[in-house]
């Protein structure tokens, strides 16, 4: 029988399906952070329950952690409540003997950077985390889903998720990405086409040569933003790129087990002729560098475009469009190139990996950021990404260009820590959401790729990284 990758993973994890068509899905890996876990652990305690399989859990604090210094550990968190939350994660992990990379551990970082980096995310797995960007891990041919705190508690207690099988969508991008375009531009383009509610009820398999040619870092960037279309998960079939990334990672199987695993992993792709509930096919030639102009990731256009006019929209859409323009302080028809920027943020679970930092350093080499930029920061996704970048000397290029070089955490992507925008400030950001207030109350976000963020820092305004040198 022909099966899609999704069918294969789903079927191999289905413990039971009841008369309502609802399944118990076995979960291999549970990734935990401080913001969505305290109430779940408290629930376990109140009901006198414990984790079903504590060895399946990997925890690290990321959302609330400061990025300016690390030598005082938890004590350096200035906000008392945030400090208590990180301390609570610490205590819960100690109480249940759960593996945690705490603030003093070089392996600490953003959950979705750390899991893959450690080889804790493996092909064919089901993985959950109380965070919507859990879809990131799907880059490894895994079914990775973001869940709420009640479901975190449910998985802790039972190792299962109660779920009806979602519908499946395949998004195929064939061809070669144009020079100067990145994985971030690819996913921003796709979101613009599918829309932010376009994948509600679906999981997405990304396929095609443009996807195959991406590195694992690039694939993670693509899968990461699946949730911005409403998808439960986004994933990519296993291939040589997946295999070489995993080889030698701390928790990846070795020796005989690796061979055994590899035999299974090689089956983790959709069979020829597998069927999908919905299909999109895009042409990679259309995927030029993109930037968001509004307050939803679907408000996205090529950098060479202009802020759109709300014609041809129904009333609800027009209202949303006008509201977005007002919030963003932009007017219809303005060219995107030239919109002045106050702050630049490079980092997050979308673009905080070594490849992203290399791209930023390559663009910044020999350049300095514009004097009008109030702050430009690079926040590595994990302590190990930071160490790797420093070993390559990337931090020196970044620092001498005028950027700050920070410690790992979610930082300005969610602004739950001291890194945030002030009201009215405009940011070129490599993160994943440009919602109202996302990066700070009243803050204005333009989502871009790492090179586009670096180019904006150099120019002082949104610009086309491909023609930055001509601009100077």
């Amino acid at each position: 029988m022909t099966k899609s990758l999704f069918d294969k993973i789903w079927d191999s994890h289905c413990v039971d399906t009841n008369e309502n068509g609802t399944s118990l899905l076995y979960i291999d890996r549970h990734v935990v952070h401080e913001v969505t876990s305290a109430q779940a652990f408290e629930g376990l305690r109140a009901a006198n329950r414990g984790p079903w399989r504590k060895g399946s859990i990997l925890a690290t604090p990321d959302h609330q952690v400061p990025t300016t210094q690390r030598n005082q550990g938890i004590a350096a968190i200035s906000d008392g409540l945030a400090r208590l939350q990180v301390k609570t994660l610490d205590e819960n992990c100690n109480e249940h003997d759960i593996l945690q990379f705490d603030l003093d551990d070089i392996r600490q970082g953003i959950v979705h950077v750390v899991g893959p980096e450690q080889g804790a995310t493996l092909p064919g797995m089901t993985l959950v985390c109380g965070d919507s960007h859990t879809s990131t891990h799907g880059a490894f041919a895994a079914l990775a889903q973001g869940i709420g705190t009640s479901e975190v508690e449910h998985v802790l207690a039972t190792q299962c998720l109660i779920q009806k099988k979602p519908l499946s969508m395949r998004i195929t991008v064939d061809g070669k990405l144009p020079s100067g375009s990145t994985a971030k531009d690819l996913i921003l383009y796709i979101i613009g086409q599918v829309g932010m509610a376009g994948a509600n009820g679906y999981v997405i398999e990304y396929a095609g040569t443009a996807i195959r040619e991406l590195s694992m870092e690039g694939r993670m960037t693509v899968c990461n933003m699946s949730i911005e279309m409403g998808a439960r998960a986004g994933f990519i079939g296993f291939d040589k790129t997946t295999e070489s990334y995993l080889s030698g990672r701390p928790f990846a199987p070795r020796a005989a087990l690796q061979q055994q695993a590899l035999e299974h992993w090689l089956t983790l792709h959709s069979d020829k002729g597998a069927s999908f509930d919905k299909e999109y096919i895009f042409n990679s030639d259309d995927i030029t560098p993109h930037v968001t102009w509004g307050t939803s990731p679907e408000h996205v256009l090529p950098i060479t475009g202009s802020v759109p006019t709300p014609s041809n929209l129904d009333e609800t859409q027009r209202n949303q469009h006008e509201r977005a323009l007002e919030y963003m302080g932009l007017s219809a028809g303005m060219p995107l190139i030239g919109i002045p920027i106050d702050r630049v943020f490079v980092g997050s679970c979308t673009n905080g990996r070594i490849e992203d930092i290399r791209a930023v350093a390559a663009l910044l080499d020999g350049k300095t950021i514009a004097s009008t930029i109030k702050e430009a920061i690079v926040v590595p996704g994990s302590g190990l990404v930071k160490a790797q970048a420093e070993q390559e000397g990337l931090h020196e290029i970044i620092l001498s260009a005028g950027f700050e070089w920070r410690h790992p955490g979610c930082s300005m992507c969610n602004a739950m820590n001291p890194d945030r925008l002030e009201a009215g400030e405009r940011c070129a950001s490599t993160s994943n959401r440009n919602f109202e207030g996302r990066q700070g109350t009243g803050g204005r976000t333009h989502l871009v790729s790492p090179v586009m963020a670096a180019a904006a820092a150099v120019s002082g305004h949104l610009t086309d990284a491909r023609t930055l040198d001509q601009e100077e």
Partner: protein
Amino acid sequence: MEKFIRHSGRVIPMNRANVDTDAIMPKQYLKCISRYGYGDWVFDSWRYLDPGDVDTPISQRRINPEFELNKPIYSSASVLLAQNNFGCGSSREHAVWGLRDYGIKVIIAPGFPDIFLNNCFANGLLPVRLEQQDVNRLFDLAESDHGLSITIDLDSQDLEFESQKINFKIDENSRQSLIKGYDSIEATLQQSKKIETFERRYFNQYSWLEVDLK
């Protein structure tokens, strides 16, 4: 969890699409480690004119009179009428805790994202998906001078208002769980034997996954 069988209440219309969970419960309130007490902060940036944090006394906040929740006609309403994709974005269950603590029992919209749906069911809130044209009809009534009161019957899956009736469908498993108000963890743990049997067979086949990370 409290059982949900039938509910009658006033409707608050919130006529905007893609309301995300950052807007429903802004980041500064996600520092709390409790499951309750979020009602005063729901839609914080829209509901108040000044910025707030966990320790800002609510009595000192400046109310935004233009925002739907603050209009006298919608005070004590318990049914939220929304547009498509209500609750998109972050998985934060705090958004649903905020709606619940404010007093919302039912949310009606043309569509919801999956994580938000599950968070609603887990907290005894009923999300009702209706056709866009039915949602538009309800908006017309709810935005009129006299407002709209509605009764939602989960047993018959009907919305009743002004001698009209609209049938809706929700996932049967979720419907049963709301009607019975049961603890889903307890229900799953009753199947422990099945999970254990599955696990043995599973690790036998995929032995490299039987790794204790610690």
